[in-house]
């Protein structure tokens, strides 16, 4: 084919049907039959079936029959897992990282706890469909920032226009090092000073609200809405996810959490294995990216490849992440596989991308395992989901079978055909 003919062929090609989920209509019951079912809670069933009715998991077990009118999905030879939960994601917030006009993951200012990244979430982002195609059914939207980045939300990746409306606020995000140092005057001591000042002012503001409204208080560290957004944090109700890697930062974080009675989660944790005992004693979860366990910075000099296994052995609640944009969260299952390669038991790795994040972020009543009554977020894999050669064959969110198309897939089909 000449270049001109090729160009014409491409131009004349029929426009593909819109790959956007149809508006909500009642979904038929589903029956995934005969699969190896990995529940996400550390157990599994061979030759088992899962029945989905009204968007929820109705039954899980061996020897079940599909209900009347159910759409039957043959799971034989395949592996069924809970939908994966991507922690640390900016899906729907960042379309093209270097194009500022497409980036809504951060708000200017050192500490912006009232910032709700979900308000900028775009369910039609091309990345939503791509992540979903890799078995990610929910993301923990994670804002970027300096000292306090804002609130994180769990959002489903159905791409439905109303999906952000169902998103749940699950955490506050902040940092102890990196950009936090610069924002706090250039040293770690400054970061802790600023954090203590903010936490103190949050409590002061709550106790002196009416005086504040009459302008009868001293100036406070943050403005009104930012202070209010921190109430659940100082009450220990909302997890405070802190970027921290160096051992000394992790110890400082634990001391701060003890002192201020905060519920903290470690994000990064390159040297967390050195603090594993203390983290386990306080049940502080660690969000870890296994493929980055090398001395990438001076905060990570003691990183080691078997960090995930060491943390798990010590009893630390472990969450695995593939980081944020660029690779997107398409590598989440590969991260789990690498953790397994370095000693983490396989089922613990699955838990670390399903149940563990749902538990850490308080959505385990609905998500994170294949269990009766939970939302039917399921993925049927062609083989071991951690193997890069396997693929997600079927993705189900809220009982609905998802469209597996994406912009990438459309391009691949278009150019395969053009060849």
């Amino acid at each position, binding site marked *: 084919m000449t270049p001109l003919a090729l160009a014409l062929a491409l131009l004349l090609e029929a426009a593909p049907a819109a790959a956007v989920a149809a508006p909500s209509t009642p979904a038929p019951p589903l029956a995934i039959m005969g699969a190896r079912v990995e529940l996400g809670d550390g157990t*599994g069933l061979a030759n088992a079936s899962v029945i989905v009715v009204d968007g929820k998991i109705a039954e899980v077990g061996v020897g079940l029959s599909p209900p009347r009118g159910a759409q039957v999905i043959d799971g034989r030879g395949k*592996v069924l897992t809970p939908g994966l939960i991507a922690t640390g994601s900016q899906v729907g917030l960042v*379309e*093209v*990282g*270097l*194009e500022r006009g497409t980036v809504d993951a951060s708000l200017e200012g050192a500490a912006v706890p009232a910032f709700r990244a979900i308000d900028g979430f775009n369910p039609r982002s*091309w*990345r939503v469909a791509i992540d979903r195609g890799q078995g990610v059914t929910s993301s923990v939207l994670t804002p970027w920032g300096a000292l306090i980045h804002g609130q994180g939300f769990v959002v489903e990746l159905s791409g439905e226009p109303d999906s952000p409306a169902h998103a749940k606020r699950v955490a506050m995000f902040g940092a102890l090092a990196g950009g936090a140092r610069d924002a706090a005057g250039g040293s770690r001591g400054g970061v802790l000073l600023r954090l203590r000042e903010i936490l103190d002012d949050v409590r002061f503001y709550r106790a002196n609200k009416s005086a504040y409204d009459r302008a009868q208080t001293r100036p406070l560290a943050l403005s009104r809405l930012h202070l209010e957004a921190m109430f659940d944090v100082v009450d220990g109700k909302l997890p405070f996810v802190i970027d921290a890697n160096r051992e000394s930062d992790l110890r400082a974080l634990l001391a701060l959490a003890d002192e201020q009675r905060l519920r903290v989660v470690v994000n990064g944790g390159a040297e967390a294995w050195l603090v594993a005992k203390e983290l386990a004693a306080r049940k502080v979860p660690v969000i870890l990216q296994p*493929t*980055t*366990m*090398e*001395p*990438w*910075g*001076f905060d*990570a*000099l*003691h*990183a*080691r*490849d*078997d*960090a995930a*296994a060491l943390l798990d052995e010590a009893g630390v609640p472990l969450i695995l992440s593939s980081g944020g*944009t*660029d*690779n*997107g969260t*398409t*590598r989440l299952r*590969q991260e789990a*596989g*690498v953790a*397994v*390669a*370095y*000693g*983490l*038991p*396989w*089922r613990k790795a699955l838990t670390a991308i399903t149940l563990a994040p749902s538990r850490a972020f308080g959505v385990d009543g609905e998500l994170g395992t294949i269990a009766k009554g939970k939302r039917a977020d399921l993925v049927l894999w062609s083989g*071991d989901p*951690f*193997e*890069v*050669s*396997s*693929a997600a064959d079927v993705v189900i969110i809220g009982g609905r079978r998802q469209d597996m198309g994406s912009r*990438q*897939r459309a*391009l*691949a*089909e278009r*150019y*395969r055909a053009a*060849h």
Partner: protein
Amino acid sequence: MTHPRALSLLLIGLATSCATQPPPKPTAAATETPAPPRPEPFPVAFVPAEPADAPRPPAPAAVLLRGGTVMTAAGRTFAPGHVLVVDGSIASVGEGPGVAPEGARVVDATGRFLTPGLIDSHSHMGVYPIPGSSGNSDGNEVGDPTTSGVWAEHGFWPQDPALPRAVAGGITTIQVLPGSANLIGGRSFTAKLKLKGSAREMRFPGAPQGLKMACGENPKRVYGEHRNGLPSTRMGNVFGYRKAFQDALEYRRRWLKYERDLSLWRDRLERERLHPTTPTAPAEGNKPAEPPGPLDPPDPPGRDLEHETLAKVLDGTILVHNHCYRADEMNLMLDLAKQYHFKIRSFHHALEAYKLRDRLASEGVAVSTWADWWGFKMEGLDGIPENAPLVAAAGARAIIHSDSGSEVRHLNQEAAKALAAGKRLGLVLDDNEALRWITANPAWALGVEEKTGTLTVGKMGDVVVWDRHPFSVYAKAAQVYIDGELVFDRGTARQVTDFEVTLPHSGDTAPAAGVLP
């Protein structure tokens, strides 16, 4: 007509050859004793010699790896098979246990998989080392968008702790490139990951240097957006390449002219030596008198380090590696290369290579890309996981590269991912082909395909022993050999940089993988 290679010989060879003259050939016309050769005045063309490759260290004892599945990346798989390395080179590859020469170390690789040492065609290890620091960031000579005269080798920090970690991922050879801030970023070098105290000692012996060029957004952003200078558009980018190559063509012409004049002058010297009394050669029969030749030696043109690099590109002795994402830009660069009579050896990143794969195949241009790193900027938007497989299926050389001191540690997984994507699209590809994306094909791109990249008799003894099939996410390199020398033995020994002397490297010694229960 001067042979195109002549200039490079001139530039490389003069420092050693200008002091010597070939012995005079006896001729029938020589009736008297020739006068002694007249020394050439200094400098005819003074070009300092570049430091030579390090001498080859003594070869380790022979090693016979037997019992595993041998994936040669040359089309054959032997299960079980063997690889024998003698004097640093592969002496035998094939079915069965092989024959151990006397004194050879025999390694039982039963149940394991043997592949060639992996090659990362795109690395900034050493020039952008870890831990990230401003003090050790030496990969982009920012300040001028064209810095053809700088060499990655001169910015390479051999104590980068990413290097031994790459070896633990089965990497034995890397190309270290300058970054992509510049249109022409400078010379790359190819290194073997037998760690030494200097870049020179780590050079891949005999490997050609490369030239890093960059299309698209990076030079635009660095100079236009950040410095309010040229280039700030793709128009400016192309102007920059054209200007640099035009200057190089003219530079090369000056040198070729000089070389011709020098040769005429030498001819004259030679005639004078043979016939001291007759400064010009007499006419013989009806043959006209030869031109007398210049009296004085010609003045060499000034040496320009920037133009010299591009002149070597024009000669084909430096290979062009072009960071370029978009298909339209790759097309444009191929046209430009044709215009200026040079070859692009490989495009790097090349996320849209699948859109012009037929041209890449027919023009013999390799494509270094990722499996699924895309979309971080506009020129990366159309990246698809099937890129490398589509390029391969069209008959071009596909390469999976890392561009990362972290991703380089699992290049095998990246190749596996791309292979799986290609198969899902219905392309006919096999393990051997995908293994070539991280071995034989990058070897070709770096110009070392005769020396490494496949398990073939006569090539360097660069071998990885994997604990399971290398395309499994659970696979880890158990042993890595470079030139037959064991440089990594999981759980037992690995190279340790000075930077790491007090740091843990026990991660490299983790137990064997668990798998799906």
